[in-house]
């Protein structure tokens, strides 16, 4: 994605947005409501035209011929309510260019993977919302897409369904398919994604691998647990106490490797039960950058 811009009327929803989705990796796309996530995804899929910038794949701009190789799960779910589940998935597969036999085979395999086989002949509208959601995932995957774009794939799923869907998606990603999904459930993203893109008010606030982001946004903050009272840490030079509770201290150091001096000091005073950098959660990074 290079310098993508899009406005609705005078409202600039995306402003020169650029980021990469790498093959074989799950990329989490985070942002508050109205930050431009869905608009961005629609542009990637060609549902909306960008007012500037290009969407490229394998080094060249995505053509109309390539788009059907993408798998898309829109935020606002919808399939034909009165069509039977298997029939509908097969039809969508054929619409994406599969022949009838392949589409049928893929449908059966996917429904089995998503534990929906016994509902294959039911009309979509007769399924529970959670199951409809799984059918929606199947609809996005039936043509073995080369790229997966999923808008809030986990909303509305119970924890078991989340696991099932996660498995299915991980399998695709490890097969080399780039997966971009948006979510507001930060815990899920944290557990699942390799890369993170955070968008805020139409601009990219942060992006990179999960570890890079943590390192970038991690403060030089450490946690120390000793056997006795840790109050002495307070008196060390170049150290600022964040939290102090009996044997446990959380502190920040002002110089590089300043924490090593603290550790040496602690070992000199007695047993050290724990010593570790405090890694920021995605939640904290998210709050920090937007």
């Amino acid at each position, binding site marked *: 994605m290079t310098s993508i811009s899009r406005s609705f009327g005078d409202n600039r929803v995306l402003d020169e947005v650029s980021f990469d989705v790498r093959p074989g990796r799950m990329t989490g796309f985070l942002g508050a409501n109205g930050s431009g996530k869905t608009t961005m995804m629609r542009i990637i*899929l060609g549902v909306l*035209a960008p007012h500037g910038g290009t969407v490229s794949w394998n080094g060249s701009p995505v053509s109309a*011929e390539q788009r*059907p*190789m993408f798998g898309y799960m829109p935020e*606002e779910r*919808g399939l*034909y309510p009165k069509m039977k589940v298997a029939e509908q998935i097969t039809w969508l597969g054929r619409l994406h*260019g599969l022949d009838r036999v392949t589409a049928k085979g893929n449908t059966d395999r996917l429904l089995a993977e998503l534990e929906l086989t016994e509902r294959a002949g039911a009309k979509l509208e007769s399924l529970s919302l959670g199951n409809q959601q799984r059918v929606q995932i199947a*609809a996005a995957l039936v043509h073995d897409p080369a790229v997966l774009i999923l808008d809030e794939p986990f909303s509305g799923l119970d924890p078991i369904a989340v696991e099932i869907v996660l498995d299915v998606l991980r399998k695709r990603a490890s097969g080399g398919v780039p997966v971009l999904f948006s979510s507001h459930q930060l815990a899920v993203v944290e557990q699942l994604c390799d890369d993170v893109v955070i968008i805020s008010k139409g601009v990219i606030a942060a992006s990179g691998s999960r570890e890079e982001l943590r390192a970038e946004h991690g403060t030089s903050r450490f946690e120390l647990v000793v056997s006795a009272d840790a109050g002495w840490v307070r008196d060390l030079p170049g150290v600022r106490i964040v939290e102090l509770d009996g044997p446990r201290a959380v502190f920040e150091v002002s110089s590089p490797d300043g924490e090593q001096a603290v550790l040496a000091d602690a070992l000199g005073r007695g047993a050290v039960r724990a010593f570790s950098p405090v890694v920021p959660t995605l939640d904290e990074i998210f709050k920090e950058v937007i």
Partner: protein
Amino acid sequence: MSRASFASATWLVAEREMNVLVRTKGFWISFLVTIVGLFALVVLPTVFGGDKPVVAAVGSAASAVEGKDLEVRTVPDLAAAEALVRSDEVEAAVVPDTTGESDIGVRVVALNDPPDDVISALVAAPPVDLLDPSAVNSGVRQVVILVFALFFLLFGMGGAAIAQSTVTEKQTRIVEILVSTVPIRALLAGKILGHVLLTMGQVVVLALAAPIALRLGDQGELLAVVAPALGWFVPFLCLGFVLLAAMWAVAGALVSRQEDLGSTMGLAMLLVMGPYFGVQFFSDNAVVMTVLSYVPFSAAVAMPVRMFTGDAAVWEALLSMGLLAVTVVAIVLGASRVYSGSLLQTSGKVGLAKAWRHAD
């Protein structure tokens, strides 16, 4: 894996539309009703129409009704005759005229309206010489016009299924997946194709059933006259239907919810009802019928009717069909632009002008 070609995408969409529609009960019910209606229209008049009018005759009036095409019940006096008329057991009473006003010496007593069939049976009709006899008598012509116009109306209404299916796609938002997969024009083309094929199938079945119905109705001689008109009616109806189908699709694309459909269907509805009533009301007015047979929307009914009554030459029909075809192309192109522009606007109703501008 490669992208489905425009043609195969169109066909897939058409196939789905047909599959879904033929599985609804409503489709079969309306189809059956149409067939039953066709048979009823042709067969029933011969079943019920054949009876002679029943009259009561008093005294010397009996001789006046003798040998006429009437079923006579002789009653003793005027009071008894009037009683039978009032109780609706007879259509009229024929009584001796005492005033001398009547040439044939009888008066006719009826309840509300002058009983034309009784009167014409009593009076010897003068011989008629036609200078330019019409190929079809006016009663038959009325029936045929009614049948043609009714089919047009029925199928025009059937086109509402296109609007329904478009709105369903917008309302359920599956349209986002569809649009990201196939060209919007293929979506529109597929919808029109699917419904045209279904409608054409129905027209063919009805066109085949019509001769059978006519034979059953003992109107074999009418068959010879209707057959060529049916031949004209089928292609005109199909073209007319494509025209309406494109309008319906746009009507569906302009709204986001099933409930709002009524507000955009008005124009399409008018274009279906207009020709129907126009041809019904002005079937005797040669000038209006000529105009109607060239105006694209009403041409689909008016031109086959004119061919049927022998008022139009073959070149006129071909010209009108050409005009219709050109209009179809223009409207379908315009519709596909509006359709593209409004399909992804999923909030409320989209104005026609806005949809037109929005196509990018």
